[in-house]
């Protein structure tokens, strides 16, 4: 019923509910249901003989104002999201668990491939070494920034203060896992793949660590800038 170009009738309500901590899926469905309900009410008022403007005003009054609609939602603790209820858990501990989980997948995959070939008595195929080194490179360079981006997206969905994805980024940068792989030579058997905590060594190691750290914290900085532009209250 509301024409294009007009502001969405529940936009302010959406921001209020998300900022207060209501789970995004409940907010999305609530606003969709309210929108449909408002359309039904407007149609009912028109059918009762009111012109469009009066019908919209009367329909909105029956639906409730933003305060009524927000309070009804905010009074229900079950509808709040976990990131809003326990941000220290989600942005402090989950990044570590996510990183371990995401690192474990390629390591297990490689171990299965190598183990399968070892059992059959042969050596790993030629592409195995390339695959391993590629996965190690991705694990060290791409995984922490990508994981940090996921946490920044999670924070943005809930309109959380920017300090939370920043904490997640710092946790990922500081306790980021450093995978290493080594192969003795192109014509010899064996090799090793390691995963664990390590401090960077040498100038190159530190430069690499600094670069990964900057990339890992970048999503939180971008999120903070976005928040500042869309909301005058700093996060």
């Amino acid at each position, binding site marked *: 019923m509301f024409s294009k170009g007009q502001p969405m009738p529940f936009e302010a309500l959406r921001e209020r509910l998300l900022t207060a901590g209501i789970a995004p899926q*409940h907010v999305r*469905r*609530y606003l*969709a*249901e*309210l929108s*449909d*309900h408002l*359309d*039904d*009410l407007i149609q009912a008022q028109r059918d009762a003989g009111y012109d469009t403007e009066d019908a919209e005003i009367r329909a909105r009054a*029956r*639906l*409730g*104002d933003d305060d*009524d*609609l927000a309070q*009804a*939602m905010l*009074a*229900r603790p*079950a*509808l709040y999201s976990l990131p809003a209820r326990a941000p220290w858990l989600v942005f402090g501990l989950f990044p570590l668990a996510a990183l371990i989980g995401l690192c474990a997948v390629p390591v297990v995959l490689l171990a299965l491939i190598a183990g399968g070939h070892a059992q059959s008595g042969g050596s790993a195929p030629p592409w195995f070494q390339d695959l391993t080194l590629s996965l190690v490179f991705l694990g060290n360079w791409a995984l922490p920034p990508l994981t940090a981006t996921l946490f920044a997206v999670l924070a943005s969905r809930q309109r959380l203060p920017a300090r939370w994805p920043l904490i997640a980024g710092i946790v990922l940068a500081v306790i980021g896992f450093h995978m290493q792989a080594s192969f003795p030579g192109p014509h010899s058997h064996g090799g090793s793949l390691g995963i664990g905590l390590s401090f960077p060594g040498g100038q190159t190691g530190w430069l690499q660590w600094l670069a990964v750290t900057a990339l890992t914290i970048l999503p939180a900085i971008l999120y903070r800038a976005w928040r500042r532009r869309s909301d005058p209250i700093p996060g």
Partner: protein
Amino acid sequence: MTANPSFMSGVPELLVLRLLQDREMYGYEIVAAVAAATGQVVAPKEGVIYPLLHDLEKEGLLRAQRRPAGGRTRVYYTLTSKGVRRLFDLTDDWTRMTRAIQHVLKGPAHAV
């Protein structure tokens, strides 16, 4: 609600569960059914029904399903078996409460 909110605690839940026992409905239909069934005595701001429905669904008392209806996708709510048990419990509570209050309202001579 048209009555004192503190006296209405649990009433919307009871009414919604009872009305959904008869048939599945979407929000607008539920509000209309509540108003019709109570002769407009219970007439909340209509939008506030949805947080209650979400809460009841989260508790497992209702099941929500999106379905096309009249050119739009509606969220239909259905009572679950857990919802039926809650309805029976609430009905018992409400019946005992109203009996007790009726007893008091009949006058001091009848009061305990």
